[in-house]
């Protein structure tokens, strides 16, 4: 069973996470503000209507008078005209002294009546198919010296208030959506901005070469400084560890190779003093074994170097002509021992882009192979020429045994040697190393048998810089 829990895609990015959280908050705030504006607006409109109704009822109440025991009323025009202010709402009214309706709609009964003169009773009722807001005020009128309480009720439908409310609600909705969009935009920007130090920090680490283990000296936000400190400590430990292992390898090589060198030297010296053939054979076997192991060690180290350096390939401009000259110079004495003529046919400069040390290693391994597998008194030619418009070709041609047809594709496979090679010391890694280097540089290695059938031809093809 997999131990990794499924994580929603957006949680994989802090930026997305922040943006979504901010957007969520913005959405909540937008809805909340919409709701608040809507309810405030509705309440304000309702209060306005109540105030207008109170004003209307009060105006009517004030117009009440009595004459010879009769309560008279001249409805002021303004009392109703003012009710037009909010919207086109239906208006109803009733003026009553006790249960007796003096004027207006007799069936308009407010839900509650004020207790005392000057009080206002506000209510909501259903009347003639509409919801009404009713306001009732009380005024005492003297009729024949008797105080008569008169109730003035003014009622109005709420269409206008509702229209105002829903109009404001719509405006608030538009504003809230705009606010939300703005907040999401700002949130995205803020998330990006907040994460910017992290990104630039990551870039600073990424830009570094694999071997650059100096501590990072950057100003980072407080939140990142533990990471920076941890990273620097890690790099320091890594650096120490790499240094230690490099020293260990060097030391180990030294410790192994020096005794081997002693053994080999002593054995070679002993060859001159022993007489018996069996003893000589034995000494030769010792020498061969020493050589084999030292060569294997060299190539393994070479291969490790190639693997390590190819991961983060340097991009310096390398002149192949110069490089070929160095390699042939270095191997000339070895070739000379077998009276092999090592010639270089190269007209520089031939620039390629890459790691000089790796390229040199590749060519040296190929030439070294040729020297090893060529018989004495033969020719090895290293030629540098353009392969096509965009590539250089370094060809190493010898007059040795060449490759058997079957072995060509397999030859570069690690640890494989040509089937027709016997007795010659070599781990077979040489061509593998060369191929790895070339592939890392965007090139390739080509093995062929020359047309005249004699010897082998190894071509190193590299893209020109």
């Amino acid at each position, binding site marked *: 069973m997999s131990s990794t829990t499924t994580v929603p895609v957006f949680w994989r990015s802090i930026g997305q996470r922040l943006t979504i959280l901010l957007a969520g908050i913005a959405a909540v705030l937008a809805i909340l503000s919409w709701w608040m504006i809507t309810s405030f607006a509705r309440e304000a409109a309702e209060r306005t209507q109540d105030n207008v109704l109170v004003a209307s009822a009060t105006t009517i109440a004030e117009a009440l008078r009595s004459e010879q025991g009769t309560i008279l009323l001249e409805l002021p025009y303004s009392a109703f005209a003012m009710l037009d202010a909010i919207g086109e709402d239906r208006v109803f009214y009733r003026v009553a002294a006790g249960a007796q309706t003096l004027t207006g709609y007799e069936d308009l009964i407010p839900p509650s009546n004020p207790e005392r003169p000057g009080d206002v009773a506000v209510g909501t009722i259903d009347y003639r198919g509409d919801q009404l807001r009713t306001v009732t005020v009380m005024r005492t009128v003297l009729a024949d010296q008797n105080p008569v309480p008169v109730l003035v009720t003014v009622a109005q439908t709420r269409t206008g208030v509702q229209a105002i409310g829903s109009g404001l609600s719509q405006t608030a909705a538009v504003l809230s959506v705009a606010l939300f969009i703005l907040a999401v935009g700002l949130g995205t920007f803020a998330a990006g901005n907040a994460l910017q130090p992290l990104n630039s920090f990551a870039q600073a680490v990424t830009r570094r070469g694999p071997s650059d283990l100096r501590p990072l000296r950057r100003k980072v936000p407080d939140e990142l400084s533990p990471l920076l400190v941890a990273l620097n400590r890690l790099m320091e430990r890594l650096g120490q560890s790499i240094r230690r292992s490099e020293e260990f390898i060097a030391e180990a090589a030294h410790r192994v*190779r020096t005794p081997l060198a002693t053994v080999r*030297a002593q054995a070679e010296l002993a060859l*001159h003093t022993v007489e018996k053939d069996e003893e000589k054979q034995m000494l030769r076997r010792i020498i061969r074994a020493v050589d084999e192991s*030292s060569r294997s*060690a060299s190539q393994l180290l070479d291969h490790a170097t190639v693997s390590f350096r190819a991961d983060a390939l340097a991009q310096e401009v390398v002149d192949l002509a110069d490089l070929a000259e160095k390699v042939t110079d270095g191997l000339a004495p070895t070739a000379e021992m077998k009276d092999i003529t090592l010639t270089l046919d190269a007209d520089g400069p031939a620039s390629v882009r890459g790691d000089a040390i790796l390229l040199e290693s590749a060519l040296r391994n190929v030439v070294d192979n040729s020297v090893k597998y060529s018989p*004495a008194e033969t020719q090895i030619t290293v030629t540098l020429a353009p392969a096509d418009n965009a590539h250089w070709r370094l060809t190493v041609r010898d007059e040795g045994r060449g490759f058997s047809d079957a072995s060509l594709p397999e030859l570069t496979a690690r640890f494989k040697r040509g089937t027709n090679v016997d007795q010659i010391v070599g781990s077979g890694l040489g061509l593998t190393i060369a191929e790895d280097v070339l592939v890392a540089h965007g090139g390739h290695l080509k093995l062929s048998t020359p047309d005249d059938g004699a010897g082998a031809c190894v071509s190193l093809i590299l893209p020109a810089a």
Partner: protein
Amino acid sequence: MRFLLVEDNIELAEAIIARLSLDGHAVDHAKTLAAADEWLAVAEYDLMLLDVMLPDGDGRAFLRKTRTTERVPVIVLTARSQVSDRVDTLDLGADDYITKPFDFAELEARCRAVLRRRGTPTPALIPLGGALFDPSGGTLSHDGETKPLRNRELRLLEVFARNKGKILSKTQLLDRLFSQDAEVSENAIEVYVARLRKRLSAAGVEIETVRGVGYRMTWA
């Protein structure tokens, strides 16, 4: 030729000294860089063989220092074989390097190559009858004509020249002549001996076959 060998491993040093002495070279041995400094102060050397890892310091630092004062050619003996180390060493001013363990034949070949590149001011010529043999230059002069010798002819001649009148067995010659990584049959010796006879007959040098034992070179 006179060598200065800077090497802290005594067994290896002894083996190298013994082997070089066989070829008639003089070798002074320094176990430390300090000792090497002292030797360099008192004597002139044709070539220095320098180990880079020594008890009292890094041979590469010494190399950098020496390069500024001394003209003596240097071949670095290194146990490190990484590509970068080789490049480093050469950049620091070594004339060549050789990785331990090494074939004496290769060491010899590299020494010769270094000296040839440097252009040895006073070649040690060996008269062979009517001819003059220059082992370091790898030439044989006769009748005012100087001819280059092939490497294997040269090395065979050198052995014969240092052992005037001695009988040398084919095996002895083989051991001295060829590097150990190449399989060479005793028949090859016969081929090279025949070549040398041809080159030297006019100068009055004779290589005699001692049946069942080996060869002996004699000259007047």
